[in-house]
């Protein structure tokens, strides 16, 4: 199976109204080329799932500024004023999720779990409307799994089978997002032949990855 596709072919798979997970942290190594392709195509009504909404002029932050997003699910929106503006005006819905809970909800979806129990958020607005479950005398919030139609992630070195090696602090949400979406596309800094990555160094097995595009070094 050939997983290598062009940016145009990738953009053809992304449609209005989709929920999309984006790897990256505060604009550091979002899938920049895929984001630009979504901007160029003018995809609308996206549910954007990411750690944060970056900065107005960087990566996924531009999707907010362009008003292509109808709902954000993230842990932090403070670095992109436009997210707050559109939230306050009621144009866009924002669901703020503690960062660890966001990671675990995505992991739960990828692992086939019915949710996770965590004390994070107990006694705060995060607990509003959620079930509190008592286990051995301790209280926990039930946080439900979080899936998406698409996950757009980044890898430093990706082989032709889709096996991914990340680099330094840019691993963040990418490996878990790869497990929790119907369609997974990785934007690779570098693409190598299968067998060139040491199997011990592979961080995301290629079975999670549907397609690969070349992002190049940025």
């Amino acid at each position: 199976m050939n997983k290598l596709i062009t940016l145009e072919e990738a953009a053809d798979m992304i449609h209005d109204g989709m929920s999309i997970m984006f790897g990256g942290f505060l604009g550091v190594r979002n899938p920049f080329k895929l984001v630009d392709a979504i901007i160029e195509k003018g995809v609308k009504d996206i549910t954007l799932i990411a750690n944060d909404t970056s900065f107005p002029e960087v990566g996924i932050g531009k999707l907010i500024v362009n008003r292509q997003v109808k709902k954000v699910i993230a842990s932090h929106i403070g670095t992109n004023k436009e997210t707050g503006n559109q939230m306050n005006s009621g144009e866009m819905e924002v669901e703020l999720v503690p960062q660890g809970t966001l990671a675990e909800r995505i992991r739960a979806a990828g692992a086939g779990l019915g949710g996770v129990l965590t004390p994070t958020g107990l006694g705060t607005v995060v607990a509003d409307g959620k079930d509190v479950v008592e286990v051995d005398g301790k209280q926990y919030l039930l946080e439900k799994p979080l899936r998406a139609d698409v996950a757009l992630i980044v890898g430093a070195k990706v082989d032709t089978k889709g096996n991914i090696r990340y680099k330094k602090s840019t691993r963040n949400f990418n490996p878990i997002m790869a497990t929790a979406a119907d369609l997974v596309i990785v934007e690779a800094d570098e693409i190598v032949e299968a067998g060139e990555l040491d199997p011990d160094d592979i961080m995301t097995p290629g079975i999670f990855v549907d397609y690969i595009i070349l992002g190049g070094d940025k």
Partner: protein
Amino acid sequence: MDANMEKEYIARRVAKELKDGDVVNLGIGLPTMVANYIPEGIEITLQSENGFLGMGPAPAKGEEDSYLVNAGGAFVTLNPGGVFFDSAESFLIIRGGHVDTTVLGALEVDEKGNLANWMVPGKMVPGMGGAMDLVTGAKKVIVAMNHTAKGSHKILKECTLPLTAVNAVDLIITEMGVMEVTEKGIELVEINPEFTVEQVQAATGATLIISENLKPIEV
């Protein structure tokens, strides 16, 4: 003391709380400064929420690595023995009780150890990031902040802003004093010799318990 000297004073005092071998997460701003004042002979490991242990100082100009930033998005370095991981493992470390101490700022703290530091309704809603996980999961939670916000109380009988966590804070360190959150209330255990107990109490919105062994802060 001017504002910068106050920050350094607080950071220096917080640094003395850290023990050899501790895994520590420092919040953005004043808490980050704590790393500059770790006492000699004490080796700590800094954790960064975006996925590594062994965070080092900012790189020299021109040495920045676009793959290596801290949880505030600023360029940093990695110390020998440092290690990278994904967000699930990062928060397993945080939520599973594997971080010894977290140091962070606050908008309000109260005598029950409740903390508010993530939003001001109608004004500022940046999001909680990893703060709720950190204060719930870390073994020890230190709030490092100015004692008041330009004169208005931040240490209260009861928080008024949306909470970050309930009953989570262990220790409060300000330019005026060091306070432990106890079951009976907030106990002033150390005081900046520049202030009197009465001045510290007047700057505090909860009734302080004054320790029988009240000591001057040494930094």
